[in-house]
């Protein structure tokens, strides 16, 4: 245990937590925007896988990481169009269409990978970029300010999302169609357009999450996400539909994961109970939620297709 409480290990654990949290945070922020508009998207995991693949493939072919990010973003947007058409225009049940997207993403990314790449080949990984001055702060400098650009982007998107949701007319529209689409409609706010845009943005974020994941790893494999997208959805509930809460959830989840891995490496957790320790992130998340005992309500119109009557 003593080995754990050394500066270098603690700092490394914190850095690992931030790194692990990055894709969760991006995906969960996007999901937050979608859910605030009343649309549940269970397909995040599928979108992440597809965009991760396309980002990977682009970088593999061109060597250009930012092109990879751009392509992932576009894939996210395209999946957003698909999901928007299904849920907003066809008024399909959101839970199931999201699962449809997930399954499609799972199968299609695997298929493309097998056809186009096959053997995993490494690509360049995102370099860490030190932020001048801040990165020299003891303890927190390394975990927070010696990270890669996608991580910075993810955390920068937290205040941006807050401002968009709370300070702009677009955000006002999003919140109103998520709570009472009839009311918004009666005031001439287009429920369809607002939800569609929110879905597009949400999926674009999921696309970025996929890019962040694959560029942090430098490699792709079938089912790369291992259910991250579903956890991201759970984190939205954990964060009570607020960007800051979601960020807290992502960091908590990342931190518990990082601590467990660190303890495994240090032998604090013996191999025999290594699996039990793997339960920790989920257990801590649930316990935290029970203890917080917040009676926050979901957006009132969440999962309900809007039909003018």
């Amino acid at each position, binding site marked *: 245990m003593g080995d754990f409480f050394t500066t270098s290990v603690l700092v490394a654990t914190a850095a690992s937590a931030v790194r692990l949290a990055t894709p969760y945070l991006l995906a969960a922020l996007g999901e937050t925007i979608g859910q605030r508009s009343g649309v549940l998207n269970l397909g995040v995991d599928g979108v992440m896988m597809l965009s991760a693949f396309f980002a990977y493939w682009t970088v593999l072919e061109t060597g250009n990481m930012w092109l990879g990010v751009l392509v992932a973003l576009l894939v996210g947007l395209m999946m957003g169009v698909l999901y928007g058409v299904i849920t907003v225009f066809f008024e399909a049940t959101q839970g199931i269409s999201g699962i449809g997207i997930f399954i499609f993403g799972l199968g299609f990314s695997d298929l493309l990978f097998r056809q186009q790449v096959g053997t995993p080949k490494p690509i360049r990984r995102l370099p860490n970029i030190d932020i001048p001055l801040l990165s020299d702060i003891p303890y927190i400098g390394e975990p927070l300010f010696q990270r890669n650009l996608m991580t910075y982007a993810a955390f920068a998107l937290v205040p941006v999302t807050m401002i968009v949701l709370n300070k702009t007319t677009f955000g006002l529209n999003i919140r109103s169609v998520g709570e009472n689409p009839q009311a918004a409609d009666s005031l001439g706010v287009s429920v369809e357009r607002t939800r569609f845009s929110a879905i597009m943005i949400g999926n674009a974020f999921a696309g970025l999450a996929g890019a962040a994941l694959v560029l942090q790893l430098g490699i792709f494999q079938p089912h790369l996400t291992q259910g991250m997208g579903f956890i991201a959805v759970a984190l939205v509930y954990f964060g009570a539909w607020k960007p800051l809460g979601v960020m807290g959830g992502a960091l908590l989840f990342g931190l518990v994961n990082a601590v467990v891995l660190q303890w*495994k490496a*240090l032998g604090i957790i013996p191999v025999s109970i290594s699996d039990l320790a793997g339960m920790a992130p989920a257990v801590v998340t649930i316990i935290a939620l029970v203890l917080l005992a917040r009676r926050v309500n979901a957006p009132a119109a969440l999962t309900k297709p809007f039909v003018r009557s």
Partner: protein
Amino acid sequence: GSSDDSSDDGGALTMAIVAPSASDDLAFSQSMVDSVNALDREITLSITDGTFIVEEAAAAIRGYAEDGIDVVIAHGTQFGASLAEIAPDFPDTTFVWGTATDTQGLGNVFAYSPASDEGGYVNGVVAAAVSESGKIGVVGPVEAGDAVPYINGFTTAAEAGGAQVSVTYTGSFGDVALAAEAAQAHLANDADVLTGTAQMVVGAVGVAADAGVPWFGTQSNQTSLAPDLVIASQVYHWEVVLEEMLDLRDSGTKGGKAFEINLANGGLVIEFNDGYDLSDDVRASADAAIAGIIDGSVNTGA
């Protein structure tokens, strides 16, 4: 390709592989595909890969047998229980199952296993020699299959070489992100040499590459993942024992025998990366270990 023409008379021998991960995973599954392709015979090969669900694999194995394929390779220890049900139903088919050290008493099943502790030992000898911090990290999937002897052999040698070895089992064959992060955790603890086994290590190799830390591979040649930093890979050449099995089959024996690939029979080969500048005396100690294992003077501890 197609396996429809699975007729026994004349033509090519028909073979099928059922493998748990992708057939080009640079690890376990690929080692078998490469081996079959290296066989010196005319073969029509059909592959069903990605069948990590045992029941799905069982369906594929049964399906191939029903289709009349001559030799069905069930490439996964976990398929053994299903094979015990299926093999007796198809006495004319030869099933090849591994990694396994016995045939469960089935007359039409050949078993194969790698002495992966041997390669682990050799890798461990080199690892201890190149490590400056004296700390080495190992990223394992789950504590099962050939991962265990590999890691044991590696640990034995590395510790004998004076290094401290820390092993993390991520709990998953597939979670690349977790494997990468486990490698990071080792680095945070001053490890300056890494190794690992199973298909999810591709994530860990990337971390090693970024940190400029040497890596040791196993199952397949992983040099392509980090051309500057992979020192050596233990590569499985199943064709050595497959050839023997097929010969037995030609002579009428459909199964009932277990094979092992090891350094001695050439089934295990330590492939050094020419791109890594390994000092001659370290290289020499590796060769000595190989020779010692072959002549039995070295105990790998597994």
